[in-house]
């Protein structure tokens, strides 16, 4: 048990992660947890894994934090130039393709799984999953990261075509919180980003407000609170 105490803080930052992208009737919702770990140490318990590429396209990042950040920086740069040249917003498909080309051509060096989601006037809301090797797959919903293993069965049962925005948001939050409950590498808060014809909305669900599942125990504040309470009664036997 001694090993657990010595976390290697110099290990590369990895986002164990649960990431989700879901289409609904009118747009897409991207969701993610917020844990970034270096080995067993949680380097950032409130990270934002949903990153903006353009006004209308966002991505969920998983795997190596460094790799996913550099890929999103490059694609943001290319998309910016493309938008200027085209004279109109880039489509989600183009954004996804640029991500895919980087992921595929550098597959030996990169270790990142990405979900691209957004809305454009030609195709509406679209989700593209780009897992490790650089495949690109357009899907009605996509899940990724270590926590996603626990969600395949859940989505098989809970997914429906043509949900409303509210239904889809609840589905995403529920799914991420289920994965957080089971996956040690996922945790913290749930962030969601909703993208549709009207624009982009960010939402935040604090970790202590997420539902408890199965045999999870309620959150404890520090026991020191008892000492600081208004009338500290000595404990009776």
């Amino acid at each position: 048990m001694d090993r657990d105490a010595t976390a290697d803080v110099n290990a590369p930052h990895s986002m164990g992660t649960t990431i989700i992208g879901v289409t609904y009737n009118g747009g897409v919702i991207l969701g993610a947890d917020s844990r970034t770990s270096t080995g067993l140490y949680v380097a950032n318990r409130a990270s934002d894994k949903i990153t903006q590429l353009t006004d209308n396209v966002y991505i969920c990042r998983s795997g190596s934090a460094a790799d996913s950040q550099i890929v999103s920086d490059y694609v943001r740069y290319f998309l910016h130039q493309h938008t200027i040249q085209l004279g109109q917003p880039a489509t989600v498909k183009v954004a996804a393709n640029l991500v895919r080309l980087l992921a595929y051509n550098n597959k030996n060096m990169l270790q990142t799984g990405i979900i691209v989601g957004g809305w454009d006037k030609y195709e509406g809301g679209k989700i593209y999953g780009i897992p490790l090797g650089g495949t690109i797959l357009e899907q009605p919903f996509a899940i990724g990261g270590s926590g996603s293993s626990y969600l395949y069965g859940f989505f098989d049962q809970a997914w429906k075509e043509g949900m409303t925005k509210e239904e889809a948001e609840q589905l995403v939050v529920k799914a991420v919180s289920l994965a957080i409950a089971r996956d040690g590498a996922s945790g913290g808060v749930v962030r969601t980003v909703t993208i549709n014809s009207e624009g982009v909305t960010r939402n935040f669900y604090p970790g202590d407000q997420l539902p408890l599942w199965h045999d999870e125990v309620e959150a404890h504040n520090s026991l020191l609170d008892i000492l600081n309470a208004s009338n500290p009664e000595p404990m009776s036997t």
Partner: protein
Amino acid sequence: MSSIGTGYDLSVTTFSPDGRVFQIEYAAKAVDNSGTVVGIKCKDGIVIGVEKLIASKMMLPGSNRRIHSVHRHSGMGVAGLAADGRQIVARAKSEAHNYESTYGEPIPVKELAERVASYVHLCTLYWWLRPFGSGVILGGYDRDGPQLYMVEPSGVSYRYYGAAIGKGRQAAKTEIEKLKLSEMTCRQGVIEVAKIIYGVHDEAKDKTFELEMSWVCDESNRQHQKVPEALLEEAKAAAQAALEEMDAD
């Protein structure tokens, strides 16, 4: 407005005192002396037609194509020096292919026109290159609908409802302006283009010609292709009839 530019016309990198680059204007003359190319944008697509002057009776009909497909959704009709035109087509094909490889979607026609124009313009900037002696009419159908562009040897490119280059362009443009393009389908457009080309062909001055036509429209599934044989024959017949009617007056 033509004048000789004695002394200022030896290089494409020389301006004349009145701000003209004569080499580019001379290149345009090469296009003006070639067989007419006409393009129109109908409500459901584009039609391109070429008056292909036949140099020799020994040439096989259908050879020496003047209209080329650039991509599934677009094509261009070429006027002027044939070899120069072939270069432009090759470059356009290459641009279209590269765009799709990088961005994962077919190149928007506007983008394609800009790239072709950029390339043609490039060759007017250096003294060791000469301007292209050909102009093209580029028609395509993308997610923003059918679009028609024309690129001139100067590198200028505009978007048109109807355009014509070559010998009979003045007369062709007059005829195009008479048409109600926004109400016309490509099927009807094909007949009109044939009539225009037969109309502007000068029997006295020029040799015989072959009519070459292509379209990209809803009926062709938004693919650029030669106008189907049956429709082409129908168009030729209608054009002949229209000519005879005019002569009979």
